[in-house]
């Protein structure tokens, strides 16, 4: 029993790192421009398909493909900001919510027509690693490691490079940043692109060990919301910690309850946190 618990917990924690990266994308966009990107899930799903086709079609190593997918997701975010978000960035929440949701529908609609909703699978295996009582798939270990690296890179970017500092300045006070000569539109576009890139990276990593459909993104989007709120919307490091919390919950719940209770519990947790501590367990970065 104890071994089983330990195995489930470690399994959950490893996937939790990846969930954290996905949530970071969502939380970054909210923190900088107070927009909730409702196309988050479909972008994750598109990244999964990107990995699949680069791997199965072009025989590319999935981790090499991941770099390409990340670039594509960044580009997608820049374009999406320019076409969809920029016009309504100063409008009430309703407009940005509906605008990003419209993108969600277009991706899901077209994706369903092209790929159908049958599952795809990246047939990629790096074997297993045995550590005492634990047997861990290597792909999951790499995914967790990559997530930590991505987080570190994001923090380095935000705190040590000029564009990253510009993003933080705009997040802090857009008007003041403009007065200091920061081109806020470009910075917002970059932040949006970074957010979608993180979603893409998370999707790509998940695709290396879980089968997926075009609708899978929705599940991860919901998890990202829960995690973001758990860690405090707008706080990237909180998102990573929130990811670990949710991952371990997801590992442990199925030991005690049927697995299809997981979304009910996740959603319950989400509502409770929104009610009790809307700023998240670790406080939002203001």
């Amino acid at each position, binding site marked *: 029993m104890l071994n089983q618990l330990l195995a489930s917990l470690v399994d959950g924690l490893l996937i939790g790192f990846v969930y954290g990266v996905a949530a970071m994308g969502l939380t970054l966009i909210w923190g900088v421009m*107070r927009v*909730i990107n*409702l196309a988050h899930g479909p972008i994750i799903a598109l990244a999964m398909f990107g990995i699949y086709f680069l791997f199965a079609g072009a025989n590319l190593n999935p981790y090499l493909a991941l770099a390409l997918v990340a670039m594509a997701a960044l580009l997608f975010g820049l374009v999406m900001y320019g076409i*969809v978000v920029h*016009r*309504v960035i100063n*409008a*009430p*929440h*309703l*407009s940005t*919510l*509906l*605008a990003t*949701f*419209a*993108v*969600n*529908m*277009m991706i*899901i*609609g*077209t994706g*369903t*027509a092209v790929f159908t909703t049958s599952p795809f699978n990246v047939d990629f295996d790096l074997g297993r690693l045995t550590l005492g009582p634990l047997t861990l798939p290597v792909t999951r270990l790499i995914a967790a490691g990559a997530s930590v690296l991505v987080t570190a890179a994001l923090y380095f970017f935000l705190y040590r490079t000029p564009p990253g500092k510009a993003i933080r300045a705009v997040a802090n006070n857009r008007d003041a940043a403009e007065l200091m000569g920061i081109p806020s539109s470009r910075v917002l576009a970059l932040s949006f692109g970074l957010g979608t890139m993180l979603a893409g990276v998370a999707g790509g990593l998940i695709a290396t060990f879980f089968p997926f459909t075009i609708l899978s993104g*929705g599940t991860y989007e*919901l998890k990202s*919301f*829960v995690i973001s*709120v758990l860690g405090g919307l707008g706080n990237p490091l909180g998102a990573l910690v929130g990811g670990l919390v949710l991952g371990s919950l997801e590992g442990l719940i199925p030991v005690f309850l*049927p697995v*299809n*209770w997981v*979304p*009910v519990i*996740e*959603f*319950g947790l*989400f*509502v409770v946190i*929104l*009610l009790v501590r*809307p700023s998240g367990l670790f406080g939002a970065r203001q």
Partner: protein
Amino acid sequence: MISSSLRQPGLWLSLLLVAVIGAIPPLTQSATLRENMFTLLMFVAFASSLNIMLGYTGYVSFGHIVFFELGGYVGFYLLSAQKWPLAAAAAGGGLAAAALALLLGLSILRLRGAYFALATIGINEAMRAFINNFKPFGGPTGMSLNFAVYKQYGGPTQALWITYYSVLALTALVVLVSYLVKSSKFGLGLVSIREDEDAAMVMGVRAPCAKTWAFVISAIVPGMIGALFFFKNGNIEPGDAFRLHMSIEMIVMVMLGGQGTLLGPVLGAATYQQLRTYLLTSPIFKNLQLTFAGLSLLVIILFIPAGVVGWLRARLPRLRRVLE
């Protein structure tokens, strides 16, 4: 006060539109048209209900279809397991939906704007998972009606007509209620929440309370229609009942016609539903229905955020008296 507000031409125009749509099937006695108009009226009622939340109060609810589903399940349970008559079962479905809205409203409507929208996204999934695991509602296999049930309504054909007229009456009721809300002090409070929630609260609007009641009002009729719809269907199962895209299409309809107007949701729902019927039968667009809905939503948000009726009202001041 009510009698004077009932003389507004805007209300009668909307009701007339509903009546014209509703009169087509009885005049032609065509079963196909009846089924089409049933769906159309259902969406008119959904869109007008959602408009109370989305248009008047400015709160987007991404899971509004959950009230239809829950009402459908509760009504169906009352019909099949408890042998309640249809009217009572429909009322039960509406009450269940209202109770859920009250519960949700009391808990999550303290949240402002975007946080509320986030919370509504998960409702659908959570409810589906709950129903899938809930034994009295049949779990994943759902429930079905014994065919003999239709006998007490004068046979299946007669039962279909009864549900049709009920939906027509409910649709007219929603339009009337959303007009009464709009022209009341309560509705004024809702609109001021939409414009500036802090200012509204300073002016004495009890925002959390008003929002909750708006949510409850917008949930009742979708719940009742749920019971009627699944009575007509004869069976109910989670995969069939939980159609997330209907939530989304409701939003598109409201935005297309004009959020916050009375005629807008009626017009938007009728137009969108006709378009959708065309798209579903056209071989090219058959699979791209959702893409099309998304594209129309995006175009509306970016270029005519006030919707068709709002746009007309802004362009042609003379029409403002008629286009409520």
